[in-house]
């Protein structure tokens, strides 16, 4: 099979799985998950073969695997759908295929496959546990998810969207995948739709990202009208780029390239949850944990960053746009990290951490560090998927404890209810530790160190000192909150009976953790810079490979001891302080960092509600609907109606009835009647009288004739 055909086939198994499950197998849970996991495996297999061939291909950057077919006819040409594997998409495909497969596998265990049906479980709510009888006494165990098959259908559809986006060779198919994921995000965040909070979170996520999407769509429309094509290959032609960079637009003095870049970037702000559209992501944690891992850590939010990396040759043309990107990215990185410090829900910490880490990638792009952004994108996907799945495993273990103790007031997601889990759940602990250290950038060993270090080096080396300092501060906070999380969750002693009875999860959940932790360490080593520590190592494979996507291979920035020193200090310092401060904390009340403004996420939800949501309602309800439509337009109509009836009755009363009816109509009748009454005596019936009358008339006529004739 040619590589091109194979690439076409990669996204297909999940969509087939979606339809198979929805149409045929939704009543059979085992069959449904077999189909879904099998499809993910096939996509993975295809992805790995393509990846292997991509590595083996000489000059892949210049001659990527590509093929396309016509899809929507437009004025003069066709909008095409097509596939493309160049070094960038090959690298992205690699991590997407791995994380998707692992998350699918994990979901089987997470949704309690093999467990009994719940006692009171209903579709739309998380399972509440089942009572079983064993050795003569009853106890409660976790129960299987009632909408098990539906979950696998949705997540398969999601995987289809992500694979489509990655292998796409143009912005249109990318947008298709992008929107499918947005939809799946809605469906999966609101998966437990019986919960009010889940329904609201789903809508919030969809709407917030949709705002970004609309700008992105305008950007796509703009590109199409400016270049007549949406394919990357056509847009990145040097003369096209040159034209776009030199055409001015009326907005902010940006060039066409700058404006397009900005519009597309707003799409990324929505999708990758950057400030100021970050508000949806923490709420999205309402969904099941595999969803959080897949959509809100490893793949969908990565799609936003991927798109900016993809469009980098265009976006980087305008320095203004680049500045905006750098500012938003670095600000988000720091701002989200400060919120993460004050969260107590194990998943919410990770959610804010994700926002912050995506900020790193965006900031890296803003300073022009193409390869570093891609590198961090990939390492982050691995270790953040690991962390989310780990947190899901922790929650699962805690839920087991909660069911065992029967105390349902214990929130299994609150870290202050945990403690000491390292002994109860050793695999989860060690893998979570690896993930956490990778996130913190623990030196030399972890992938996170290498990718973050490269961003620091690039920011410092290219002279963006402010970005460098902000990111370094954020890195300190990252290490700090990560260690806080690890300390509160795993170290010390159990703080609740539920934590005491927590239990390690099953192999379908732990195997993905182990696989992902291998990548969370090992993937960093493919990108060790050539002159690290001033040594002359092999050239960084990752840099050479992904860098060749661009027309001009980006220069590697020279090694700097200042950067390395900073990197070490913030990572190790943050970890140390995190442990120091939280090792003896027993409850949320003792936590000094529970500052209201951080706890309440800087009140963004409230501010947006006040600034946008309420005014929109007012505008729609009071202004447009009541005032304009019912008041003005219908008012004019009813006025016409009144005027018409007014004219009608005026005409009726004053013209019709008075003049025509009474005067003319009735008047004629009256006159006729009067005349008849008065002429009646003539009709006497006497012949003589008639004869006399005839004679008189005859004489009169004769006289008249005589008079006329004689005179003339």
């Amino acid at each position, binding site marked *: 099979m040619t590589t091109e055909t194979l690439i076409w086939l990669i996204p297909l198994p999940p969509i087939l799985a979606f339809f198979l499950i929805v149409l045929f197998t939704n009543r059979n849970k085992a069959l449904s998950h077999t189909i879904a996991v099998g499809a993910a495996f096939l996509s993975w297999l295809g992805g790995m073969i393509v990846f292997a061939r991509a590595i083996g291909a000489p000059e892949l950057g210049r001659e990527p695997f590509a093929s396309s077919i016509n899809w*929507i*006819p437009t*004025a003069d040409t066709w909008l095409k759908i097509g596939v493309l594997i160049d070094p960038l998409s090959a690298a992205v495909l690699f991590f997407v295929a791995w994380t998707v497969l692992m998350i699918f596998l994990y979901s089987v265990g997470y949704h309690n496959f093999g467990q009994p049906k719940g006692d009171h479980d209903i579709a739309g709510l998380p399972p509440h546990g089942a009572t079983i009888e064993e050795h003569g006494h009853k106890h409660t165990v976790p129960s299987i998810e009632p909408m098990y098959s539906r979950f696998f259908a949705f997540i398969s559809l999601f995987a289809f969207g992500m694979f489509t986006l990655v292998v796409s060779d143009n912005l249109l198919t990318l947008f298709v995948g992008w929107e499918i994921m947005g939809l799946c995000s809605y469906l999966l965040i609101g998966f437990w739709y019986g919960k009010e909070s889940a329904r609201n979170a789903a*809508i919030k996520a969809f709407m917030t990202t949709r705002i970004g999407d609309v700008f992105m769509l305008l950007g796509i*429309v703009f590109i199409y009208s400016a270049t007549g094509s949406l394919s990357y290959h056509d847009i990145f032609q040097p003369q096209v780029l040159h034209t776009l960079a030199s055409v001015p637009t009326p907005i902010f003095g940006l060039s066409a390239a700058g404006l397009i870049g900005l519009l597309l970037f707003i799409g990324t702000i929505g999708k990758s949850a950057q400030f100021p559209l970050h508000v949806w992501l923490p709420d999205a944690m309402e969904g099941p944990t595999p969803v959080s891992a897949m959509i809100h850590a490893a793949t969908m939010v990565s799609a936003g960053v991927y798109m900016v990396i993809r469009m980098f040759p265009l976006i980087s043309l305008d320095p203004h746009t680049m500045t905006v990107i750098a500012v938003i990215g670095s600000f988000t990185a720091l701002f989200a990290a400060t919120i993460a410090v004050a969260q107590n829900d194990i998943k919410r910490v990770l959610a804010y951490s994700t926002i912050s880490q995506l900020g790193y990638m965006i900031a890296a792009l803003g300073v022009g560090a193409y390869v570093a952004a891609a590198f961090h994108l990939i390492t982050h996907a691995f270790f953040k998927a690991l962390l989310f799945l780990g947190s899901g495993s922790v929650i699962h273990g805690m839920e087991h404890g909660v069911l065992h103790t029967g105390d349902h007031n214990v929130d299994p997601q609150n870290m202050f209810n945990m403690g000491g889990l390292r002994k109860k759940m050793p695999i989860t602990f060690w893998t979570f530790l690896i993930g956490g250290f990778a996130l913190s950038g623990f030196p030399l060993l972890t992938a996170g160190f290498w990718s973050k270090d490269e961003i620091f080096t690039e920011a410092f080396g290219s002279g963006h000192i402010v970005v460098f300092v902000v990111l370094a501060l954020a890195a300190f906070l990252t290490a700090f909150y990560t260690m806080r999380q690890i300390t509160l969750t795993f170290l010390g002693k159990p703080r609740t009976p539920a934590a005491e009875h927590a239990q390690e999860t099953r192999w379908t959940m732990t195997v993905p953790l182990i696989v992902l932790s291998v990548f969370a360490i090992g993937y960093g080593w493919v990108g060790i810079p050539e002159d690290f520590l001033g040594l002359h190592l092999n050239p960084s494979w990752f840099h050479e490979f992904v860098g060749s996507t661009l027309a001009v291979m980006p220069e590697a920035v020279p090694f700097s001891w200042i950067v390395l020193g900073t990197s070490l200090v913030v990572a190790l310092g943050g970890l140390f302080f995190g442990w120091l401060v939280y090792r003896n904390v027993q409850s949320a009340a003792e936590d000094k960092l529970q500052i209201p403004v951080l706890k309440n996420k800087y009140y963004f939800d409230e501010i947006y509600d006040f600034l946008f949501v309420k005014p929109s309602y007012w505008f729609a309800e009071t202004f447009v609907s009541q005032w304009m*439509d019912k008041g003005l337009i219908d008012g004019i109509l009813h006025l016409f109606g009144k005027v018409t009836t007014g004219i009608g009755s005026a005409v009726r009363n004053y013209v019709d009835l008075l003049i025509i009816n009474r005067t003319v109509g009735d008047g004629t009748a009256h006159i006729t009647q009067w005349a008849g009454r008065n002429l009646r005596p003539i009709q006497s019936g006497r012949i003589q009288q008639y004869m006399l009358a005839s004679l008189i008339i005859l004489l009169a006529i004769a006289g008249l004739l005589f008079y006329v004739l004689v005179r003339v």
Partner: protein
Amino acid sequence: MTFPVLSVIVFTPLTAALIILMIPAQRKTEARGVALAAATFALLLSLWVYIQYLTQHLTGYQFVEKYDWLPMLGISLHFGVDGISAPLVLLTGVVMFTGVLISWGDNNPHVMAGIQDRPREFFAFLFILASGVFGVFASLDLFMLFFFYEIAVFPMYLLIVIWGWIQTREYAAMKLTLYLFIGSVVALVGALAMYWVAGRNTGVYTFDMLQLEKAGFSASFQNLWFLPVFFGFAVLGGIWPFHNWSPDGHVAAPTAVSMFHAGVLMKLGAFAALRVGIMLLPEGAKHWSWVIMLCAGVAVVYGAFIAFVQTDLKYMIGFSSVSHMGLVMLGLSTLDKNGLTGAGVQMFSHGVMTALFFAVTGMIYDRSHTRQIPELGGMNKVMPFAAIGFIIGGLVSMGMPGFSGFIAEFPIFLGVWQSQWLVAVIASISIIITAAYIMMNIRKVFFGKMPEKLEGHMTDVTVLDKVAITTLCVLMIGIGIFPSVMVPMVQTGVQHILTLLGGA
């Protein structure tokens, strides 16, 4: 002689209406059976026409038939379809077919869905209306176009007044009828002006639109008459600020009539505005396109905002129709290949989508006796099939890729961006608002908690309802995934318009 397929399509419903009226009133099933048979027949024929047009890569006016009717006045029965009207003929067939299916209903005394009161007369009036609609789409004679146009509008009044929602039906029916008749009278005056002037110019007095296209009206004549003609018809297309009859009418009408009304009748207005306004008076169109763009741009955002705050499901859909028909008008106003193509596809896509919306709403209303969104909830559990249908309609409505809405809206935005980027930006607000109200309503109506008073009183939709929903969904998804089944065809029609516009 070839088979006169268009005449058969146009007169099938009328004939069926007469047959139905001859069936005794108490034999409801027979009346329905004849209606379904006739609707199926018309659907198959219109599908045949569509497929022929598509697979043989036809262009221009096809399946043309011409019979002299009043030769001394230049009036003839002249039928033919082009790339724009063929999809609309199919749309009418589809809406007619599904409308009959969902009106069949469920005569279970606990449910009483569909039309149970005098179905014989109902179908007869509905079919007279359908003949009128087919006639407008197929007519190439201006006089006959008006003739069928009035036939399409008139039964609407009766259908709403007799079978409509008791609270507003008289008001709504009167409002609708007056709006539409006033609009058509204004347009008729314009048409007569064209008839006389063309006759004076060429010496041949005719209503044949193919002749009128070549009549060579002067620019000042066109500039004078374009707006009356365009707006006269566009009233039926729900153009702002003459849209207000439409949501009221939708709400008051019984389900199948709402489907016809929003699904097909509004297209009639847009189509006639295009055919008579833009195609016969191209210079006027160029001169005044900014006015249409303005009104359409307002309609798109305005309708979306109002739909956003409606608590009545039907009003919500009604105003969303105003917004989506605004997109059609916006596409027309660009006078550009992408914009016009998008408008053509959007007419079809919106017709199918809104028919689906009204169908599902009707199913819910018949069973719950309320359309108030706050009083509904949990429908997903009792009618999952209808829920999926409504969600698919919602996705089309918000322009999701992979559905017909995206295929239609994307070219419209391309066209609008090229002619006035600011209008595109403003119109794009509606994409967000639309997503908001669709999502919020789906959340509440289908996934929210079912109110206690509905608990136990709701039943699933019937098999016929499912057939109707499936038919409509298949079309929307089919076009979304394989746009080449419709877009190139619409483009052939658009090409002709562009020629009339002077190759612009």
